[in-house]
């Protein structure tokens, strides 16, 4: 097979990784599992890469940890590890669910959530789950380290604001949900053709009594980037959890997006119907899960 890359590095520190990026001056790419990038390159959709920098062996970034109120996921952590982690199942349910539908088992065994977020597809399932939880990403460069909301990293379909020549997405975190919170994810696919979602949606709700006190909703593909649906979540906050209110959230979501028919994937009408049908379903599931039960 024609080579998709020439040199392979698996640095064990972030500093080394940044150093390689700098040395290759735009000709190096960071990979987690590499499945997205390498499949596209093997298919001739991308130019071959001079150097790949495998981020999964960097010390300290291969595990899930807890820091204060956050659950922190290193960039080397695979989807499978996320799916099965009891802390994420309990305190970040929609992320466990969303990572669990990516591809198939083999791809989840090597693919990483960091890679999913950095790839910036309009409906990366793991990303959708993370957004609903208000996830943040840690960007490391030679200038230092900073945390930014994951929702602010998307520039366009498949384009991230993360400067891949100079920056590395090193960690991901989200606030652990409390006993008053529940989260849920769902996805509608078709069994034919490309394995891309027709719609992927996630939500996190916090309830006190039957009042929704905070909410996060995310969905894609509904535009060029994964959408953190603030207008829809805003409709719910301070309101009782009810089918009627969920309906208003649906309307708010639909008002703020332009759905399109995509060839061989879904008509605009079907996408709208799927949002109308399934958003209330995950909202209800999140309500049920709020209150500590799973």
């Amino acid at each position: 097979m024609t080579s998709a890359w020439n040199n392979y590095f698996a640095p064990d520190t972030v500093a080394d990784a940044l150093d390689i990026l700098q040395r290759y001056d735009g000709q190096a790419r960071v990979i987690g599992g590499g499945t997205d990038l390498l499949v596209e390159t093997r298919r001739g959709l991308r130019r071959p890469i001079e150097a790949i920098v495998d981020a999964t062996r960097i010390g300290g970034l291969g595990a899930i940890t807890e820091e204060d109120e956050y659950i922190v996921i290193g960039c080397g952590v695979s989807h499978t590890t996320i799916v099965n982690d009891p802390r994420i199942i309990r305190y970040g349910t929609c992320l466990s669910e969303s990572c669990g539908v990516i591809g198939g088992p083999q791809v989840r065994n090597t693919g990483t959530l960091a890679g999913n977020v950095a790839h910036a597809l309009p409906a990366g399932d793991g990303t959708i789950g993370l957004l609903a939880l208000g996830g943040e990403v840690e960007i490391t460069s030679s200038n230092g380290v900073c945390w930014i909301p994951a929702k602010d990293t998307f520039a366009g379909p498949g384009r991230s604001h993360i400067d891949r020549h100079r920056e590395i997405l090193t960690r991901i975190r989200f606030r652990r949900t409390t006993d008053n919170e529940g989260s849920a994810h769902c996805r509608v696919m078709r069994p034919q053709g490309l394995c891309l979602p027709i719609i992927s949606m996630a939500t996190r709700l916090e309830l006190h009594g039957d009042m929704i006190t905070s909410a996060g909703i995310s969905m894609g593909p509904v535009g060029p980037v994964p959408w953190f649906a603030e207008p829809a979540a805003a409709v719910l906050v301070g309101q009782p959890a009810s089918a009627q209110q969920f309906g208003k959230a649906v309307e708010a979501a639909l008002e703020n997006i332009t759905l399109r028919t995509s060839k061989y994937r879904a008509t605009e009408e079907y996408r709208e119907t799927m949002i109308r049908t399934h958003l209330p379903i995950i909202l209800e599931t999140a309500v049920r899960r709020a209150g500590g039960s799973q």
Partner: protein
Amino acid sequence: MSRLQMTVNGSPVDIEVDESRYLSDVLRDELRLTGTKIGCAEAECGICTVLVDGTPIVSCVYPAFKAQGRHIETIEGLEHDGKLHALQQAFLDHGAVQCGICTPGLIMTAKGLLDRKAAVNETVSEADIRAALKDSYCRCTGYQSVINAILQASGQDVPPYLPETRAPESEVGKPRPNPNALAKIRGSARFTDDYHFPGMLFARTKRAHVPHARIVSIDAAAARELDGVHAVLTHEDIPGRNAHGVVSVDWPVLCGLKVRYAGDAVAIVAADNEAIATAALDLINVEYEELPAVTDPIAALQPNAPQVHSERPDGNLLKHIKVGKGNIDTGFAAADVIVDQTYRTPTTEHLFLEPECSIGVPAGYDPTRFGGTCDALAERGETARHAKTTIYVGSQIPYADRDQAAATLGVEANDVRVVATLMGGGFGGKEDITGQIHAALLAEATKQPVKMLYSRQESLLVHPKRHATVIRMRTGATKDGKLVAVEATLYGDGGAYASLSEKVLTRATTHASGPYDIPNVRVDCFATYTNNVPAGAFRGFGVTQSCFAAESNMDILAGKLGLDPVEFRRRNALDVGSTTVTGQVMRESVGLHECIDRVDADMRDGDFRWTWDEGHKRLAWGLAIGYKNTGLGGGAPDKATAEVEAWQDPEKGLVAEVRISSAEMGQGLPGVLASCAAEELGIPTESVSVLLGDTDVCPDGGPTTASRQTFVSGNAARLAARDVAEMLAEAPGTRVVAQHEYWAPATQPLGTGGDMHVAFSFVAQAALCEIDMRSGEVQVRKIVAAHDVGRAINPLTLEGQIEGGIVMCIGYALTEHYIQEDGKPWTNVMARYKTPSITHAPPIVSHIVEHELSTGPFGAKGMGELPSIVTGPAITNAIYNATGVRVRSLPVDQDSLLQAIRAGATEVELGWGDRHPIPTIEFGGEH
């Protein structure tokens, strides 16, 4: 180059490898562990799965250096001290190994699951298996046997699923694994790409990528100059006939004047390695004058349509096939109810998991000249020299490959030898020439062996597919439920070259009215050329298409008549004494009624309803019945010659070898031949070896097509064994050889009113489908099936074919469509073509009906295609019963279906991938 250190199957590996390599390539090429197979190089099919530190990964996109310091397990490492791993033994016992190309991937994925569950002391459930193997594909088995085998291997007592069959003879009728299954589960079975010849070069083909164009010029000079390129050939370099074709010889080996579809070959390159060959392709400059393309079979017959083969007097009409019985005007006049509907079926792709590979070896090749020995010959115990031009290929028709290659090389047929290697699936897609002739041409041009391996993407582009059809069918019945007339007009898209279009569409035509006794029938079928991908043989061979129309109409008619769909079919089903639509009287072996009865009894067992709700899911049963010819029929000479040799083995006593060129593609032919011969010789099947597919050593068994091998080659093997038995009776203890040429009973061409086929096999299937009323998604929950096969020679491999065939037809109904846009394939990667995964594979309850055929070996008829015919309409009939919506195009699109359900519509016209409505067609073909 850098140093890669890892452990592979417990042994340390320390090698210098380019950092750019994938793990799959290092395993196969550097370490010569060819048990790990490559199916797609897209991380789609999972057959390349290996374990890294116990975790299943797809090795085709896994950088080799990611494995640095890790522990790799491949299929070759499973055995210990000559003892098979529990998974290997279970796969054997359960018949979960057919063609074998996916077997290592399935087993390694399963091992990952079993080890993981064992580590935490958890039992393995079926749900666990379905989740773990979701992206580990198989195209042959239908997954049921795989699930059972894994449960068994996890320590649970799960017997192999075997339907009840007649009491066996001494050998015939007993379930046993395919003789070649052992090598497949060990990873030692070799497919063509697993062979290595010293001095071997790598070849690639320059393809048109435009659907219709005149070739203005071909400039290969720069490519020839490239370092590492040994030869670049164009049409000017062809010594003999620049054409091939299994029926009509209309397909250029290398195009010189024009290209007629996107996959047409314009030049071939042989180079030191694949990367150089690929680079050389880019240096070949072909100038085209693009021509308007015709991409629709009805448009192809319009007066001003672009002509695909301008020299043909009939233009784009490949053939107008007609079938007539009685008088349809009288017939319809007597009908109380008439249903008139138009249906559409898609182009579909075989997706055998082994991409095509041919190796050409030049006449006089001596491997020692290149410093080595040759695996392939060492295996066969032969000497090193290839006296003749030799082609190694997994092919369904070795003799036809030989003859076509010889014609192009400009030599006598006998000057070429074809050695058939194991085929990783065929299903009809490996009957036409692909790389055989190209590899031979390059081998002779370079005087070195040349391997031509297709990528998955090239395979999708190039080989013939299942014909897309549009079918208008009018069915009339009296109010007491008797069919009185059927009229149908079919258009079949044959694509750029004839391939087997004539045969396929004849079959679609003769079977169009269904397995019913109908006094008045008229069917017109127009097989056309277009600039789409050629269409040819694919399991079901036209009957899969026309059955969709026939069995949909039957349910609609039953509804209008107020009759139960099963009862309506009973009133009309063929039986002994019936006359078929072509005028053939069924004198024996018609098990259709028993098939219907057994499926009906099962379906209605307990508290039966046609449809009910479970939460937001609507469930419903749907039924369809069908039939399929055994053998070539239509007057074609249908024969096979088998050679049997027997001798005394000091340990085993009398042993024998059956030799025939017939092809095994996982359907279990060697076991069938061995049992037939063993029965005649009075020895155990295990004492009979089978050598297939070497045109120098094996007499011609004919093509593996038309569900004919058990019948024709089975009889040839049986009769040759009988000859040997007679010779041994005269001269006991000696080594004897006999050849027997068996001719199937003569058949008559269509239109003469005589027997068109030697036999028919019959099928009834009921599908329990689940429709998600929120999303329109359709899942098959269960299939109940009954197949009349005459006699089950090997119930284990028979059941494997049934389950695999059913699941393949589920794919045709629900998930598969090879989409072309104005002659350019949208389906250009495996990611865009989904065949059923384990997630889509329902439990199957299987009944074997055995209405013996007197001329069949021990009563057997053909059955390889039979399971892949009626499942489509069974599913769409269920969808109708659930929702009131009639699906008229396949595959079912959940988007259109849901919108129809919500709008209260009664039908859906568009299938997934359809951009245009179903064309309106006139009966008789006024186009």
